[in-house]
């Protein structure tokens, strides 16, 4: 691949999914206007969802989903062994995601309820980094394709990759939205990492924190804000638990 005199290597790319909805992988096929250019950066070696040609000589693996069965552990370890760069792709991979809501119940109870009388294995849900070393994380439920495109371009050109450090609030203000707190709703925008262009709050629904905590968040001030506005603590707990992305923060503060 040649551009303005520079030569770039295509990424030897693979994409895998575990316990998830495959919505993040679907984003790889979205944004159709830039899709041919985007796919032009990749040498797709293994991507079951879109291709029946499968090879195991990839360098970079995007891994979607969380881990909840022992065969998934084995499969993930094999991917780790092959991949030079392993990317946790999407909120389920980065934090466990909505799947983690299962962990509130006793182990075995969900399976017994849904498959009475059958043996169905289901381990407590874990994020990818609980099982193998992760080189880079792209959060989002689903991931934001624009951000994925920027990261892939950085990987191809060998430039610096970074996620925004500031919270969703910044992006939300830039879009001139009315603050949801002013409309009487708890929103996780002040404490959640930006990069989604405040898509939920622009649609007038609260941020549920799918991208996890922003850097240097002021959790006590956030909790104080919720209290000061007279909003329900129960609602806050439900929102913080939704994607399991504030597990570490919530354990310390609430």
């Amino acid at each position, binding site marked *: 691949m040649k551009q303005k005199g520079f030569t770039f290597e295509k990424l030897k790319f693979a994409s895998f999914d575990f316990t998830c909805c495959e919505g*993040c992988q679907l984003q790889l096929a*979205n944004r159709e206007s830039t899709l041919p250019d985007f796919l032009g950066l990749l040498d797709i070696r293994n991507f079951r969802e*879109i291709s029946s040609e499968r090879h195991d000589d990839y360098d970079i693996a995007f891994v979607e989903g969380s881990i909840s069965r022992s065969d998934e552990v084995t499969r993930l370890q094999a991917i780790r062994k092959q991949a030079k760069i392993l990317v946790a792709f999407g909120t389920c991979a980065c934090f466990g995601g909505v799947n983690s809501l*299962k962990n509130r119940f006793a182990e075995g109870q969900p*399976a017994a309820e849904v498959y009475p009388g059958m043996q169905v294995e289901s381990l407590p849900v874990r994020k990818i980094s609980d099982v193998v070393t992760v080189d880079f994380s792209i959060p989002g439920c689903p991931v934001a394709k624009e951000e994925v495109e920027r990261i892939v371009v950085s990987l191809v050109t060998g430039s610096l990759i970074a996620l925004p450090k500031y919270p969703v609030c910044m992006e939300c203000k830039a879009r001139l939205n009315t603050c949801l707190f002013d409309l009487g709703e708890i929103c996780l925008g002040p404490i959640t990492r930006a990069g989604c262009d405040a898509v939920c709050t622009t*649609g007038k629904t609260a941020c*549920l924190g799918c991208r996890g905590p922003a850097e240097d968040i002021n959790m006590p001030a956030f909790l104080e804000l919720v209290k000061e506005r007279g909003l329900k603590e129960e609602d806050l707990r439900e929102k913080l638990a939704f994607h399991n992305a504030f597990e570490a923060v919530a354990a310390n503060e609430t």
Partner: protein
Amino acid sequence: MKRNLEIDIHHLARVEGHADITISVMNGRLIEARWAVVETPRFFEVMVKGMSAERVPFLTSRICGICSISHALASIRALERAMQIEVPPVAEKTRLLAMHGETLQSHALHLFFLASPDFAGTGSVLPLMQSHPDLVRAGLQLKSLGNEISEVTTGRCTHPVSLVLGGISKAPERHRLETLLSMIRERKRALDIAADFFSTLNIPDFTRETEFISLSNGSSYPSIGGNLVSSDGVKRDENDYLQMTNEYAKEGSTSKFTRLSRHSSAAGALARLNNNFALLHPSAQKTAERFGLKPVCHNPFMNNIAQLVECVHILQDAEELVQSLMEVESPEIRTPFNPKAGSATGAVEAPRGILYHHMETDEKGKVVRADCIIPTTQNNANIHLDLHALAERALSEGKTDSEIQKLCEMLVRSYDPCISCSVH
């Protein structure tokens, strides 16, 4: 000829989710033809327990990355019926348009990215970008139109943002509706290109009689809510979904099975078309005629064509919906509600067929019980029996091993299975 054959496809490619196909032949006799779903379950019906009703659609939409709007709206419909919440007409229209966007995106993804490589003899859509650039561009145009409709109506194309209990949280913006309207008009051309391509393909001629199940409301092509009907003459109220599905589990498959009057039944585009042909837009009926597709068609491979026909219908109907939304001035978009105890079913026609969510709430509006029955679950038994019949026929016709394998893969893909969804 006494032949032996073992086909063992682990994690079938170009479908959503993980499933295996096994075909086993000994001394010329078919011993086994099996479709097994091995996807990991997530237990949404359990996870949703104790959650406040207003948050539920945001969770259940995550059942599926492709049909998240259908899941959100099935939950919303169930909960609104359980708590007797009336929805403003603008919100109703916006939701119908959102369903169109999702179905168009899903059908285009399936037809162009997942199914067409089989017909063209390639492993994926990537080589087609060079060999059939006009076709791929047409596919991308239709898919992006579907995504754009979803985005304008729900705030995002995957995992909707503004579909809420009582209506919608934000009305579609006028300038975006205007752009949509011109996009819809312009992209009818892409449909013609697609139809021309599909008319040159050799659709396998295979039939096995089955029972087709879909929604039906008597006045428009089905989308959100209505009666539950089957091509064998069964008709039930939406809340009586259990009598329509008779769901059961079997060892070795994390996706369940359903049945009604026969050993198996089918849901999806072909089922909708078979049960509601007269309600399709005339231009969609014309496209169907071009392919010799008329009710009741029992060839599962024709589900591909039924999806194409639905795309024609969607573009026509979406054009009208966008126009009528543009005529609305300062609309009422959301009805406030008080949580209460109740239970009801919400049935919608997801891209791959009829989808049921049943929800029960307590007096605080928290979910105490939930049940979701997914289209692919309703197709599992049919896929299984079709595979058996198809393998048997291909054997008797003396097809080669690789021909049999390809036919079986194509059959399964024709159903456009949504596997992680079916296991949920």
